[in-house]
Structure formats: C-alpha cells, structure tokens
C-alpha cells in the first residue's frame, strides 16, 4: 500500500517537474486568488469586530414615570434584565439627568435655574449584544416596554439601527458573491491546468490503460498534482497575507469618523481554512478535469 502511494507521489512530482512552467503559472494565479480570498476574510473579520463594537454603541433609553417607588423601579429593572440580548448599561436618576443636561449646555446652563422642579425623567440605558446577527428586534422591544407599568417612554435611534442593518446586509451579500466568485475562479484555473497536464500526457495514459492500469492508478497522480498546487498556493497566500498584516497592523485605521479599528489577524481556524480550502479546490479541480477526460 505504502509502496503504491510512494509511486503515486513520485509520479506526481516528476509530472510537476516536467511541466513546471504550467504549474508555476497556475500556482501563481491560484496564490493571487487565494490571497484575494484571504484578504477578504481578513477584512471580514475586522469589519465584524468593528460592527460588533458599533452595535454595542446603539442604546435604548427607557424613561420612567415620575413618582415611581423603589419597588416598582426594581421590578422594571428585573424585567429589563430578562430581555434577550439586552444589557443594562446604567441607571440615570432625575438628578443625574439634570447634571448631564447642564454639562451639555455648558455656559447656557443658567437657563435651567428658573425651573421650580426637575422635569427630566429617570431612565435605564440599555445596550444590545449580537446586533450584527439581527437577533434583536428593537422595535418589538420598544413596544413591549412601553406597555410596562411605570415606563413612560422608550427611545432609540431608529435611523442608526437601519443604517447598521443595511451595512451588515450589503457586506454579507458582497462577501458571499466575491468569495464564491473567487472559489469558482480558483476551481476553473486548477481544472484547466490539470486538463492541460492530462492532454499533454494523453498517449501515456492510453498506454497505461493498455497495459492494465486501473482508472484510479492513472487518476491519483493527477489528483496529487492538483492537491499539491492547491496547498502550496494556499500556504504562499497565507504567508503573503501574514507579512502584509505585520506591515500594516502597526497603523490605525479610521473610516468616516467611526470608531478606530484595531486590525486583528485571522484566527488559527480561519488561517487553516484558507489552506484547506485551497487544498480542497485543488482536489476538486483535479476530479473535474479527470472526470471530463475519462468520460470522453
């Protein structure tokens, strides 16, 4: 068994060396494609982090009615904690609300001195986790909170949330389309390289078959060629991506005045998945090319 596999690998290696120019061009092209895919993944990971942070900055204010007692306040707090995905960022009492208003008015804070009593309501500030997965329906939460005893009004920035959801949607659809197209391109390149290799050795394959080689005996070295192309290209793409990351990670990036992005590299799982995807595409390309050849 080992002997036959050694033969297959030796045969694949000799074929690669004999057609090294074709293989080099093909590996270069696959490396570029995988690099694009990897860069896109890196962008995706970083944008996801950024979106998460952004999502956490979306808050909801739950204004309480004047004159509610401590017991009612605790009851509301308890119910807020039960909302899936919600976290209480803080409680702002009437007094704190007035201080915050005065601070925001700055020099014109004196305007508020004429007030006989504090008209501002106390409120709970809610933030939400998993905003990037659309698991939180803020409108629904708003409606149910407003029905609660002791709650006066609920406010959140609907415009922000809609924009946020729009960005995520566009980003994910673009990710699927670009990623899918790149995979198809890699598959196409590998299939055609293997097809070229097969056709350049058509006579050899015919002779192998005439002396009693099974289909798999002929196919396996080509599949190894595809896999080798895939894995080497995947490794190269990963190394280039990592080098680029090392160069650029020291710089901070800010887009449209939104929160600063700390660039992170792909997780081990993601890095391995690039190389594995490259390997799988190599094997698939080989299988498609061989399937077509043996059919004819």
């Amino acid at each position, binding site marked *: 068994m080992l002997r036959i596999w050694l033969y297959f690998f030796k045969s694949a290696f000799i074929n690669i060396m004999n057609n090294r120019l074709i293989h080099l061009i093909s590996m270069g092209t696959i490396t570029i494609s995988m690099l694009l895919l990897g860069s896109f993944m890196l962008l995706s990971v970083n944008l996801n982090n950024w979106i998460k942070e952004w999502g956490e900055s979306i808050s909801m204010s739950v204004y309480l009615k004047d004159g509610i007692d401590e017991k009612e306040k605790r009851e509301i707090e308890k119910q807020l904690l039960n909302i899936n995905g919600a976290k209480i960022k803080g409680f702002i009492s009437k007094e704190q609300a007035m201080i915050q208003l005065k601070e925001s008015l700055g020099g014109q804070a004196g305007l508020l001195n004429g007030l006989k009593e504090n008209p501002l309501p106390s409120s709970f500030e809610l933030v939400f986790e998993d905003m990037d997965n659309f698991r939180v329906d803020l409108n629904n939460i708003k409606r149910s909170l407003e029905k609660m005893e002791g709650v006066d009004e609920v406010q959140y920035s609907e415009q922000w949330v809609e924009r946020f959801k729009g960005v995520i949607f566009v980003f994910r659809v673009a990710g699927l389309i670009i990623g899918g197209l790149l995979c198809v391109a890699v598959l196409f390149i590998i299939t055609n390289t293997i097809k070229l290799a097969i056709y350049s050795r058509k006579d050899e394959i015919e*002779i192998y078959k005439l*002396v*009693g080689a099974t289909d798999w*005996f002929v196919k396996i070295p080509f599949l190894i060629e595809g896999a080798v192309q895939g894995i080497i290209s995947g490794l190269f793409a990963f190394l280039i991506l990592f080098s680029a990351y090392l160069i650029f990670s020291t710089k901070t990036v800010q887009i449209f005045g939104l929160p600063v992005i700390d660039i992170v590299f792909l997780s081990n799982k993601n890095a391995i998945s690039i190389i594995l995807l490259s390997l799988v595409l190599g094997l698939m390309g080989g299988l498609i090319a061989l399937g077509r050849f043996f059919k004819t």
Partner: protein
Amino acid sequence: MIQIYRLSKSFGTNIALDDIGLRIRKGEFIFITGPSGAGKTTLLRHIFGTEKPTSGQILIDGINLTRIRRHNLDLLRRKIGFIFQDFKLLNNKTVYQNVALALEVTGERQAIIRKKVHQALRSVDLSNKEKAFPLEVSGGEQQRIAIARAIINDPMILIADEPTGNLDPDITKDIMVLFRSINLRGTTVIIATHSKELLRDTGHRVIVLNQGRIVEEIEG
C-alpha cells in the same frame, strides 16, 4: 481459451466484422491474415477489450468481455500482452522504464520489477539498451521493447498486430523465433499479418479474413 460467437461490428454503415465465429485453444499459435481493411486489427481489439461489439459474444478464459466491468477489464488486460503495430512506447521513458510500466501498474515491488525487467530484456536481447530511449534504438529494437513489455507479466495470451510490418527479413525471422519460444512456454499467441512471407510453412492455424468475414481457415 478464447471463444467468439457471432461477432459483428459496424462503424456507422461500414461493417468491420460480420458474424465471426472462432475458438482458439489454450497454448495455440494462430495467425489471422487478410488484405488491408479485412478486419484483422478490429478483431484483435475486440479480443483485447478495447472495442465493444455491435452484436455477439467474446469469452476469454470463461469471462464474457461484452459484460465485463471496466475495472475487471483492466485486471484482465494484465493477463493479455498486446504488441501494437506502432509499438506504443513512451519516448520520454527509457527502455527499462517502458518495460517496467506493465508491472508498475500492478503495484509490484521494485525489487521484483527490476528482476523481471532484466529477465524480459535479456530474452529479447536488449540487456545493453536498458538506459536508452526508444528513439535512440532501431525499429527492430523498438519492436523487441514492445515484446518485452507484453511478456513481462507472463501473459496467458499474447496478441501481436502486424509485428513485423516495418522490419527487414532478418529481424522478422528473429522476432518470429521469439514468439515461438514464448508460445512454447504455454502462452497462446495470436498474430495478425498480411505478410505472405510470414505465413509460409508456419505449421500453425491460419484464419483468413476478407471484408469482415472469415473466408478460409487453414489448419496447421
């Protein structure tokens, strides 16, 4: 060993073989002859399983080639040596590698392959050419490489299609001596030729084909 029943083959409207019936015994040495286009090569290709009949049956050692699975046909081919008119050698491989090919596909150990290749090359008198490439040797030597490759698996059947078509009379004689010695070891030998010279006083059965039909059978 080989039984052929009512074998017919058409390529479009062209009838290549027409109702062929033939039995070849184990260990027999048989010639198939006829003019060009008589169907000799087509008949051999059917026996080797590279051609499927339009109708009829072919049995090799009890195995029906018309119903055989592809994988089993590959395995059966290891028991049949075929020497092609154009030799079908790989010009980018050495003489040794060309002959070793027939054993490598079986997954045989390298030590055994080495031993058997040396034996086969010795039997066709090419021991000194094992490192040469096919295009560096003469036509007769190329023919002997093809023979060495065909006999290396100790086949039960050896088929040769116009094996001496491109060779001069002296080399033809040597090649025929080689076939006879292979036959003496128990291998069934089938040779297709249109050479009258080759058929003279063979002492073997001769099947004469014309326009895809057996028109004469001369017992040896």
